């Protein structure tokens, strides 16, 4: 079994090879050649990933569950009794992630041919994309928490490099720096969590069922909630949970395909994936802490949805929408109360719902971002006010965007409906309060998405802006990925996901347990929100919107300014850390500590200067002092 999957090593090595090749020799290649190298490598990776999935889910179940497979695991760095291993772990969630990453990444590779056409540094761009893909794949197939951390840092740096791809632009530099530092700050907690976990459980491995590991883990039960929560903080940084989300909206300064790949579909769900990966521990040893995670998620979802309603930059709306949707996944994990399904109620339905939503969200959010890329490509601006009436010029973008909007709003039969409905079911199973909160946020989602949709494709056309340069679709390289991902969005809802992924590995037939009342309610609420958005934003003139804004100027401004959270951070980093810690420390170092040594040197020098007078070389002086000394001695003797 293990040997059958050894080829999965290629899934990691091919993008790495492509990165090294493009990084070292890319500048000697033409744009087209460099792009082709990256894309072909990724194409092979995608084929291998699909093949892995087919083989894996085609293999027989043992006790009703798919067994984890470890094709390779080597000791990379010995750490005394512990060991830092590197390897590949295939289990239902990592295989699903392979599909998500390779699919979206391949589409982004193709799309970038059009979007990045003629840009300076095209080869570098593809090199970074390969680096990112390799790191992300390494993250999901990690066999232990330390390997996950290693690749976690690598995705962080690839994200940094790609956000700052346009390195001559000030906002891009600032955004890349911010993204890296904020996530690094969170990673510090992740690291401390790993250290605690490793010390008390004597293992880093994800193999929780191994007899010895299980015994050690049970022995460390008292510390596990702390360790897991610290690790979650690391995940909260990457997955943009409140209040560590501030880097994600700024990260939109990067090229749009990058936003689609990294900041919508893959890297930002790493935190969710991490919690899912450690789920057996969470549910067994830290269920209360897990519910804290759920509430953090719920607040984040609400906050981001509220902010998204007031943004005017289309990528920022999508960014806040991403934050909100990832928080949905977090909530789904957090509301789990049992390790198994099938006890009559949905104790761990959330686990499956979360992974399912991760999967469907990756597809439709990538579509939305790639559509946004097409629009930006066409009008050369991110602002909604520069668009309006775009449906006439860009039919493909229009239809794919609309389908993705319907999916994210939770309208059947699109994929988002199914995954979101499972999340709502799980939330209601946990507590009605959580259920209604999440339903409310789902309604907000539908509202701001359609506000965005009408703002771009309907509403007032910015004729002035469009007349200079008629907007048009990009070539097939840009429309093909849109259509491909939209097909996923259309059919993904019908994948029997519960049969593949569930908390205890047992096949779970969601449709058999489907709560039709809940489905109808959530669908109805979404439709009402859409209708409301249509009423407010569809027309050429938008009297209702203007009136609302005029009625609540402060609320609108606060939401537009993202509740001034960035300013708070700015204050803490610049005023407190720079001005009140680093500057005084540097001053202290130069003036007090160094001053002390300079004082020593000065004192020695002065003392030498004083003593120097005695070595005058004149005999009379020596004779005088000699005499003086002799007299003193005589006096002492006499006395």
């Amino acid at each position, binding site marked *: 079994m293990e040997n059958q999957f050894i080829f999965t090593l290629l899934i990691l090595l091919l993008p790495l090879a492509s990165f090294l090749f493009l990084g070292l020799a890319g500048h000697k290649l033409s744009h087209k050649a460099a792009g082709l190298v990256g894309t072909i490598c990724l194409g092979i990776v995608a084929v291998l990933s699909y093949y892995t999935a087919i083989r894996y889910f085609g293999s027989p179940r043992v006790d009703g569950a798919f067994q984890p497979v470890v094709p390779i695991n080597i000791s990379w760095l010995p750490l005394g009794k512990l060991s830092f291993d590197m390897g590949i772990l295939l289990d239902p969630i990592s295989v699903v992630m392979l599909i998500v990453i390779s699919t979206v990444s391949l589409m982004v590779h193709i799309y970038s041919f059009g979007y990045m056409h003629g840009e300076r540094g095209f080869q570098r761009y593809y090199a970074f994309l390969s680096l990112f893909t390799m790191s992300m794949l390494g993250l999901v197939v990690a066999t232990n928490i330390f390997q996950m951390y290693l690749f976690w840092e690598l995705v962080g740096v690839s994200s940094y490099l790609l956000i700052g791809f346009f390195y001559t632009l000030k906002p891009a530099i600032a955004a890349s720096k911010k993204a890296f530092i904020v996530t690094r*700050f969170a990673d510090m907690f992740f690291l*401390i969590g790993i250290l605690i976990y490793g010390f008390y459980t004597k293992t880093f491995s994800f193999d929780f069922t191994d007899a010895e590991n299980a015994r050690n883990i049970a022995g460390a039960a008292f510390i596990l909630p702390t360790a897991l929560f610290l690790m979650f903080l690391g995940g909260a940084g990457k997955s943009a949970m409140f209040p560590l989300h501030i880097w994600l909206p700024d990260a939109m300064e990067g090229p749009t395909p990058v936003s689609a790949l990294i900041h919508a579909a893959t890297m930002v769900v790493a935190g969710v994936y991490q919690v899912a990966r450690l789920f057996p521990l969470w549910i067994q040893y830290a269920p209360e802490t897990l519910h804290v995670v759920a509430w953090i998620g719920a607040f984040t979802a609400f906050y981001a949805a509220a902010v998204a309603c007031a943004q005017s930059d289309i990528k920022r709306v999508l960014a806040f929408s991403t934050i909100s949707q990832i928080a949905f996944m977090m909530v789904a994990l957090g509301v789990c109360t049992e390790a198994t399904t099938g006890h009559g109620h949905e104790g761990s339905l959330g686990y499956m719902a979360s992974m399912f939503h991760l999967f469907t969200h990756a597809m439709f959010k990538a579509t939305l971002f790639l559509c946004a890329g097409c629009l930006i490509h066409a009008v050369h601006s991110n602002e909604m006010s520069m668009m309006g009436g775009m449906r006439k010029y860009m039919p493909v973008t229009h239809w794919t965007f609309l389908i993705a909007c319907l999916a994210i709003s939770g309208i059947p039969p699109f994929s988002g409906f199914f995954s979101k409905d499972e999340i709502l079911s799980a939330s209601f199973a946990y507590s009605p309060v959580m259920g209604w909160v999440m339903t409310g946020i789902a309604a907000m989602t539908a509202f701001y998405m359609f506000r965005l949709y009408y703002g771009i494709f309907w509403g007032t056309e910015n004729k002035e802006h469009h007349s200079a340069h008629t907007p048009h679709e990009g070539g097939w390289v840009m429309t093909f990925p849109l259509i491909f991902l939209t097909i996923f969005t259309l059919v993904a809802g019908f994948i029997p996901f519960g049969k593949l992924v569930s908390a205890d590995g047992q096949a779970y037939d969601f449709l058999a347990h489907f709560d039709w009342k809940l489905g109808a309610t959530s669908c109805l609420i979404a439709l009402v929100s859409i209708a409301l958005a249509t009423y407010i934003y569809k027309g050429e003139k938008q009297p209702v919107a203007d009136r609302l804004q005029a009625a609540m100027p402060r609320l609108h401004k606060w939401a537009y300014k993202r509740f001034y959270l960035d300013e708070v951070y700015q204050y803490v980093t610049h005023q407190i850390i720079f001005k009140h810690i680093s500057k005084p*420390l540097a001053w202290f*170092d130069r003036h007090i500590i160094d001053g002390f040594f300079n004082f020593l040197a000065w004192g020695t020098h002065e003392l030498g200067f004083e003593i120097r007078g005695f070595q005058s070389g004149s005999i009379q002086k020596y004779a005088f002092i000699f005499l003086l000394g002799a007299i003193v001695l005589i006096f002492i003797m006499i006395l």
Partner: protein
Amino acid sequence: MNFLSIFVLIPLLMLLGLWLVKDQKGIRSVMVIGSTGLLILSVALTVLFLQERAVDPTSPMLFTASFDWIAPLHIKYSVGVDGISVAMLLLSSIIVFTGTFVSWNMNKEYFLWFTLLSAGVFGFFISIDMFAMFMFYEVALIPMYLLIGVWGTGPKEYAAMKLTLMLMGGSAFLMCGIFGIFYGAGGQTMNIIDIANQLNGAHVIDLAQQHIWFPLTFAGFGVLGALFPFHTWSPDGHASAPTAVSMLHAGVLMKLGGYGCFRIAMYLMPQAAQDLGWIFLILTGISVVYGAFSACVQTDLKYINAYSSVSHCGLVLFGILMINQVAATGAVLQMLSHGLTTALFFALIGMIYGRTHTRDIREMTGLMRIMPFLSVCYVIAGLANLGLPGFSGFVAEMTIFVGSFAQADTFHRVLTIAACTSIVVTAVYILRLVGKILYGVCTDEHHLKLSDATWEERFAVICLIFCIAGLGTAPFWISNLIDGGVAPIISNITKFTADASLNPFM
């Protein structure tokens, strides 16, 4: 004659060669041949050592030899290597080799002092006699004064004087400490291994004496290891030193400090190390965090790197003082990693300074478009410095942290977590720097015409990056090599347990 002595013999022959040759070409060929010889020798030594170690896994030192030098005073010239010194020799030869290419256009006198300095460094790492070690230590220090004072930049006389005086002050402590150990251990031998072998679970050196000599020896070496508050020579010294000297100094010479602390202070006075280690642990903890924060507001490229070195070298001493197999292995890995990374950094800073004639980060911007090769390498150096996986820093830091965490009491835990914060602060100053000088659009028209790296500069930089990435991607064998060297020292110290009444924080 033991073949380890070739490490000192080659630099001496190089000195002779340099003295004889006349033109620049001659100087270059002597330097390149000599430093290549050293590099080959150290690689050969590593291979031989691993083979020999497989045969003889127990003796603390291999390839030992001893000759009477000043017999009445029991001073001998004794050599021998273990895993730690092999790793250090490898590091030194890499730095000397690349340093040669970086200082390609310097004159003969410069290279004479440079070679003398490296003779001292190699001698230090092969010696196992305290007196010989001390002598080589001084041989390595003195040339620094001239190298900075004559070929330096900025307020070079001040910097050279400060550096030399502070390090000499450290040597004074050290000498007291060494003689204290010598007499405390019976006054019969200066050989480290012999003294250590007498321990066998008992105090060879009287406990009261250990408590005096340990702080002196540790602080004496600690000055060179940039231990807070004796680190202030580092920013001024590095800022004024010529490029290759900065490389050698930060890359290798500062490692003498950590190496000496471990090999002499802690190995020979285990009980005192257990009892009083906490004082220095607090100081190193301060170094780690303080260095990182101070680096955040500096505006001179070299100052940033010097404070960064304070922080990273602090981590070396921090790892050692945890008195734990894993942490100490990590500390030695960190010596290697910091040596290579910081050498790369100083090399690049020198190259950039050679072109722009400024090191003030406020006066440079957008260099990426003008010197792409140097800038890309600078980014790589920065990422290596902030501990990105795939580079050596990650391996070293993680090993130290995992090891430190094994000390389960609150005192050690708090310090470990404080040290962990440095990884964030490091990211802050590195990215600030990269964002300011490399990214953006170049506005200074003088900078627009600057050229990218020459072939010898490229060669040196690529060699260093290759080593850093090699250590970062395949750490297994080097970690094993070091682990074997660390084990006897740690087991020697852990025979004793700390007297908790001496530590108010326990």
